[in-house]
């Protein structure tokens, strides 16, 4: 593999400003809510990322795009009250997400579309903080008319606290708890002590307690004046309430204080940080607390046992660690049965997941701030590389000769008008068409490389798009490999296909008629009633055309895969668009009418019937890719007039020729299960039956970061699938079977559905999950802080029996897991053998002959990876000289884009960089 290791793409990841878990820390009985546990990550560029912890797997589900000058400064989830049906069954309430930015409004997001749903601007002042009321719990006899939802409280810059009602699925201003004070002390943080009592921290060294039922001030707690030499007022940056009602606060003096729940008297103060404490949080049992701040430390506190007869228990500072490389701004904890973690994030854009229960015994895990949908794309033929962020698209040309100092050139920079950030960009394989989607519109451009010696320039011209694309935005666009189809994913998860027509001069026209693809209805009825709305589950995250552009597949968060086949043969003589509205009464309807059968140039997309549908997968597919075939057996092109022309009896003839190609769809799910399907038959292939997830190489199973992208490199010798995540690159030779560790896979006559059930919770999950609380893996014995968890008794008795070690820990992990804690961002990931050697081996012909082609290979050498895109092996005549190695097609050439943290353009940290760790 020829790697252009590039850092020239100036992708700026965005700082984390807010974190919120969709569920409060539940009690140990309530595990159901962990299924709907999501982490919302609010970033400085206005993006909100939704992460699914998935029992410690942590994969990115979707991103709600922000826009210009938008930022997410606070996040809150609420859940509508559960509804009890008449038959006693309980329907979980819907989850709703609210955010604030640098504005006076509170925004509610539509989880299904990823767009803002409604705003509430009750106040002219900027909203600084928000909090959601705790869930209603059944206590005593139900009272009539009692509000059971969760209201939102917002604290503003002028010191007001506004109560917003979420009743009747709305967001409406209800009342002010306080009016602006004379001093206009900002309300910096707010939290609920109970359903009725609100605790808010202000910038005038005060914590005030309010009763939201009548808006009265229950108590004002002063934190005193600031330290000598510093500002007089203490800023209370963060308040949280313990389960027993005690209040924990973090302030600008670097102190963490605890206040009594009833009398609001100060119980204890701990000076824990060297600079401002930005965020605090507590565990479910109230025995552990954490704080973090601008000194980049993450401090853990624990409630010490009562001593000496007195019942009073004191908090003690256990330890601190410094994971982040920059100011930490946000903290969120979830402490449930299977997961016990808290997340932290800040200016260094990385997300860290720390263990609560496993504190000191498990690693914290870092999740890179780079996006999981690589914002890079390449056109293999024209060697163009496209990268995008915010409202900008950069187009680069990559030269073949890596010996040149400057082997890349910025060809063009496209800045989009409007406020919305780019959601998706697709560059056609021939590098001539560029499609850009934002929340407002879909734009298409035609790219032409013009050689004006000594350099090449790129000419960009806009392509007229149908009205349907101009007015509404999209989440995702994908151009088919033959550049004839543009797939557009709308925000409401409708998939539309546009037909592109090329003329001889290369001009491109988009046919105005847009085809709406119909998806299978949600299979799982339960998901319709889950607290994450069924529409959210139906969010499509992947779209993929087959190599001949005749099969199109999509996958959604719920794990369903829909596929379509293009029937018929292209015939330029056939009508460009032939709408068969015979089934529909409204002949004028175009994109809204799902029933209309549309034939484009004699071809029509056919939705694969439920009978042949790919079964729903257990977890979300994160990678869809078709296995390419080297020797494409071209079906003989029918001569003459292949398309069916309308006749009198059949004014809208339907083509029925199904492409004869061999389509094999590789699917990698969020649990890193690997399947291969035949999309036409919906069956799992023989290869996949032989190579189950369990047979995947152990190194891959241990990898914690999820794969982000895939590439193929197919030669007569091998069919290599390259997968990469943020820190790792893997290679599988798919032409060979993985070695089965558990003997040959059983091939009795089970139905596929059964087989899937059997494969639930494969080993890879077990290896990652067991015994950990959802953050990193277990620490090595030697790295555990404090005394080892082993203890043994020595005795001086004469019985001579050897004392045995008593390991005071559940025997949960096998030895090999102990020794391999890969995937951690904090400790150097085990250095793979010599990278360069290994790489040579991969390509070394002799070695291949001796041992057969390498089956599996990986490296941790590159990280963090923004994206890897393959470049063409096609050689232009002028560049043939550089083709030195092996036969044609032996070398896969890729551009690997890294964004190391030191390359980020971050402001100086609050606490000086000179400070030693």
């Amino acid at each position, binding site marked *: 593999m020829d790697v252009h290791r590039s850092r020239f793409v100036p992708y700026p990841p965005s700082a984390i400003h807010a974190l919120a878990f969709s569920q409060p820390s539940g009690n140990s009985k309530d595990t159901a809510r962990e299924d709907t546990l999501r982490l919302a990550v609010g970033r400085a560029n206005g993006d909100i990322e939704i992460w699914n912890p998935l029992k410690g797997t942590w994969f990115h589900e979707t991103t709600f795009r922000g826009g210009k000058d938008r930022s997410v400064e606070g996040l809150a989830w609420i859940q509508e009250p559960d509804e009890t049906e008449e038959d006693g069954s309980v329907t979980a309430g819907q989850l709703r997400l609210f955010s604030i930015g640098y504005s006076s409004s509170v925004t509610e997001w539509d989880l299904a579309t990823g767009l803002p749903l409604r705003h509430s601007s009750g106040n002219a002042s900027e909203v600084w903080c928000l909090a959601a009321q705790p869930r209603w719990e059944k206590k005593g006899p139900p009272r009539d008319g009692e509000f059971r939802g969760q209201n939102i409280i917002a604290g503003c810059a002028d010191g007001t606290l506004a109560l917003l009602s979420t009743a009747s699925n709305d967001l409406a201003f209800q009342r002010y708890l306080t009016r602006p004070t004379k001093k206009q002390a900002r309300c910096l943080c707010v939290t609920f002590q109970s359903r009725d009592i609100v605790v808010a921290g202000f910038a005038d060294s005060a914590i005030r307690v309010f009763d939201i039922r009548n808006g009265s001030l229950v108590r004002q707690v002063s934190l005193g004046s600031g330290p000598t030499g510093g500002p007089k007022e203490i800023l209370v940056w963060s308040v949280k309430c313990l389960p027993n009602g005690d209040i924990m606060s973090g302030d600008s003096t670097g102190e963490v204080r605890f206040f009594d729940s009833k009398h609001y008297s100060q119980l204890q103060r701990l*000076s824990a940080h060297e600079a401002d404490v930005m965020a605090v949080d507590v565990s479910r049992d109230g025995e552990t607390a954490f704080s973090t701040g601008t000194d980049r430390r993450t401090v853990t506190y624990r409630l010490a046992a009562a001593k000496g007869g007195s019942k009073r228990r004191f908090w003690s500072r256990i330890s601190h660690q410094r994971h982040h490389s920059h100011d930490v701004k946000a903290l969120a904890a979830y402490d449930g049965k299977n997961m016990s973690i808290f997340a932290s994030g800040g200016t260094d854009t990385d997300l860290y997941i720390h263990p609560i229960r496993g504190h000191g015994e498990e690693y914290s895990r870092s999740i890179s701030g780079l996006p999981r949908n690589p914002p890079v794309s390449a056109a293999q033929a024209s060697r163009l590389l496209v990268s995008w962020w915010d409202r900008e698209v950069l187009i680069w040309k990559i030269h073949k000769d890596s010996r040149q100092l400057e082997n890349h050139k910025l060809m063009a920079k496209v800045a989009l008008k409007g406020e919305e950030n780019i959601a998706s960009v697709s560059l056609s394989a021939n590098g001539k068409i560029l499609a850009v989607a934002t929340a407002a519109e879909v734009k298409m451009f035609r790219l032409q490389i013009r050689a004006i010696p000594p350099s090449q320039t790129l000419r960009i011209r806009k392509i007229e798009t149908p009205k349907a694309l101009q007015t509404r935005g999209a989440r995702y666009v994908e151009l088919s490999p033959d550049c004839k189809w543009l797939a557009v994913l709308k925000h409401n998860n409708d998939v539309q296909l546009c037909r592109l027509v090329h003329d001889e001069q290369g001009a491109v026209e988009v046919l105005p008629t847009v085809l709406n693809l119909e998806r299978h209805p949600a299979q799982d009825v339960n998901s319709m009633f889950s607290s994450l709305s069924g529409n959210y589950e139906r969010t499509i995250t992947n779209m993929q055309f087959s190599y001949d552009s005749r099969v199109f597949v999509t996958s959604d968060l719920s794990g369903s895969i829909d596929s379509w086949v293009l029937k018929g043969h292209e015939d330029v003589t056939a009508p460009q668009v032939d709408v068969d509205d015979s089934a529909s009464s409204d002949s004028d309807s175009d994109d809204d009418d799902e029933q209309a059968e549309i034939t484009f140039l004699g071809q029509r997309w056919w939705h694969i019937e439920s009978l042949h549908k790919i079964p729903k997968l257990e977890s979300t597919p994160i990678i869809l890719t078709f296995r390419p075939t080297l020797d494409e057996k071209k079906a003989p092109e029918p001569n003459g007039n292949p398309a069916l022309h309308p006749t009198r009896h059949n004014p809208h003839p339907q083509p029925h020729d199904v492409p004869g190609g061999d389509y094999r769809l590789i699917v990698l799910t969020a649990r890193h299960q690997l399947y291969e399907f035949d999309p036409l038959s919906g069956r799992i292939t023989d290869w996949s039956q032989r190579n189950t997830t369990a047979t995947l190489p152990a190194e891959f199973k241990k990898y914690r970061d999820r794969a982000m992208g895939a590439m193929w490199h197919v030669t007569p010798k091998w069919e290599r699938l390259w997968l990469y995540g943020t820190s790792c690159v893997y290679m599988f030779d798919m032409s060979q079977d993985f070695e089965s560790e558990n003997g040959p896979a059983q091939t009795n006559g089970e139905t596929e559905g059964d087989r899937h059930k059997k494969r639930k919770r494969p080993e890879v999950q077990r290896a990652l999950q067991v015994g950990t609380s959802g953050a990193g893996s277990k620490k090595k014995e030697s790295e555990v802080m404090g005394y080892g968890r082993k203890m043994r008794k*020595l005795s001086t008795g004469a019985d001579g029996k050897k004392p045995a070690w008593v390991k005071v*820990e559940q025997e949960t992990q096998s030895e090999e897991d102990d020794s391999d804690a890969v995937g951690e961002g904090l400790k150097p990931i085990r250095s793979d053998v010599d990278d360069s050697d290994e790489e040579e081996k991969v390509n070394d012909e002799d070695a291949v002959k001796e041992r057969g082609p390498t089956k599996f290979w990986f490296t941790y050498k590159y990280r963090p990876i923004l994206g890897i895109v393959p470049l063409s092996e096609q050689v232009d005549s002028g560049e043939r000289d550089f083709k030195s190695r092996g036969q044609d097609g032996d070398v896969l050439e890729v551009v690997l884009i890294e964004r190391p943290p030191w390359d980020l353009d971050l402001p100086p940290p609050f606490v000086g960089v000179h400070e030693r760790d």
Partner: protein
Amino acid sequence: SKKRKDTSDTWALSGSVGGRLLPLDPLFSQDEKYILVASRNSILVYSTVDSLLYRRIDPGQDEIVSCFALSKVDPNKIFVGTTKGKIIEANWINGTTGDTFKLGSRIISIAVSKTRSAKNDIVDFVDVEEPTETQRLKIWKICRWNRSAAEEKPHVLLARPKSLKEIQVRDSGRVIIAPFERQLLCLLAPTSNHAQEQAKEVEWYQVEAPDFIVSLDAKVPTSAVSGPSKNKATATSTVPVVDVAIGTIRGQIYIYDDILSKLVDMDKSKEKKPAGEASKLSPRLLHWHRGPVNTTKWSLDGNYIISGGNETVMMLWQLQTGKRQELPHLTSAIDSATVSPSGTAYGIQLADNSIIVLSTAELQPTAHVSGIQTLISPQIEYELPDLKTVATEQSKEQDSFDASEQIPALLRPDEPNLLLAAVPASQPWTEPSSLTRSKPFLQTYNMSTAQNISRQALTRNNATYFITGPEGNRLGEPDIKFIAISANSRWLATVEEWAPPRLDLEFTSIKDDPASMLNERGIRLESYLKFWRWDKQNNEWALETRIDTPHMFPDNTTPARILDLVADPTRPEFVTTGQDGHIRIWRARQRFRENGVAVRTPAGGPLITWSAKRTVELESPVHEVEDGFTIRLKPSTARLAHSHDGSLIASCHEYAGHEGYSISRFIDPTTGEVVHSRPDLFTSGLAGVGFVSKYLVVLSDSLTVWNLIDDDLHYQYQLNSHLRMPRFLAVNDTSDTFAIALPYWKKGKKYRVAIFHTSKPEPVFVSKRLDTVTALLSVPQQSGYVFLNDQA
């Protein structure tokens, strides 16, 4: 220690004075009026009111103290452990020693508790068995010995081949906490009565420590010690609450609350293994120290921890608020600390061989006690691991360039009891000891009263500053190489040297070429000759003149090292010689204006400057390398001596590697002429030269006594010792004697001091085996000698 010989016909060795204090916690007496500390030779009881020595308890002939503890039954009694395996009972009030028990082979730590009946002391001690033929390893044993059953042998509780520094016994002997390198062992003794304990098998809980433990303190909260008042059965069956704080070699302090009951719980529940149980043992972490935490102690109420390390800062950690208080700029690293019984004072032992008592309220010193602070090389029983720390980097720095042979020390001619010696800033026990540590301070010590008089910085120093360079190397201080005092004790001359550390010069020198490094450092040498006037009002030496680079090579750019400095016994004049081969005679000169009025200093005294009165250019030998190429040799060693009447200077120059050129010259100090020279007085290994009546004594690989009048050899010994260790010569004109200290090898480096009378070639006195001698001095106007050894 310092010993001297008496003058009478028979020479004898006197007792030692001012030895190094052992790195043990000082102990307060119950009324806090006295503080007890241990040196190698005795237990010293100092008053905390006036810092004077109150009592001194000697364990007996040839016994070396290793540890001591106060009796819990009789607060006037102490138990002293010795390296010969004895435990000695003594009464520190009246100084009487009581019974002596031979209980082990080498006792290194001792802890005393009392039985529940409070009638008898239980003595737990650590005994070290040297390897034998059958047993290859050193064995550390924890033994328990009940004082009441004195006849019985001590009962071994544990024997391990891992080193152990101390043990802590709590709760009437029920709990023993012992740090074995990286392990912590806890004993919860069975709750039987004292008589049966010994027969029972005991069980220890062993847990792996996070790092190498250098200090430990266990505390039983005061409220929990309510033993006798409660029902005895319940009091003994419950597990006592023990909080343990440990300090590690990398600077962390870990605090374990109630560790013992957790261990017992873990042990009981080992079949069940409930989840989350393990995290209970997770400690609290306090991390401020960079280097080893030499001492960690709980305050009496358990709310604070005090700790000290090599940073010269005493830390007070307030556990509940997370605040910490710092008491910075103690003069030296902290070796150990104790809290007084009432909690009103801290006793802090500093690494410069001194002890201060601080009041806990104001943190003001109330008492200060110090021994001789010269360089030491103690034997530490507790073997520290070889960490890549500042200190080890420092020791790699050392090279022969700086190897000083004799600790610069002298006795004041007007008050021969006062010892003046160049001392280092601090020598903490956790850093590898080295006799090449730089010595920027001058200590004045009264040998007759065993009192520290003063300590004064003679060079710039960084005793209490941030002492680590960017690469983690220790910043070096200038080193006092020579001191000399004028006959009237008014003037002191000192020579100091400083060269950039090797790390900083690596880029300039050829790799792996020590000569090139030596050369580069030589070019950048800073060498000062300083003259100090005795300031009677302030009782200190006041700097009068500083001569930068007193000796320079003929190229006038490269500084030359000074090889010796002597004072004229009659006039306020000093003589130096350097690598440039010259001898310079320095003289004080009063400044006058042109009109003849004396220039006065602002203080009113005459303005005196020192300058070179005369420079004697000695001819350097020219050595012919092959092909007629010649080089001018530089002297590697030179020794000067002034004749007693000040009429003659003897100078001996040795050229390393070119023995044939070694030469001795005699110079008239008034004219600066070389009146005579002899090549045959010594060949190599020059160590000292001195005039005794009409003889010149030269100590080198041979001992030569030369009759100056007859210009004839009086007698000569060939010394067969080839140990590369310094030899020492001191001459005493009062008694017509001279003394030499010679190294020899017998199970380690040993020294022997011999005293010769000029009349006969046999020594009149030969001492027994002694520890490494670091300086040998002659007592002015008296006939004795004083020597310093590496135990100070």
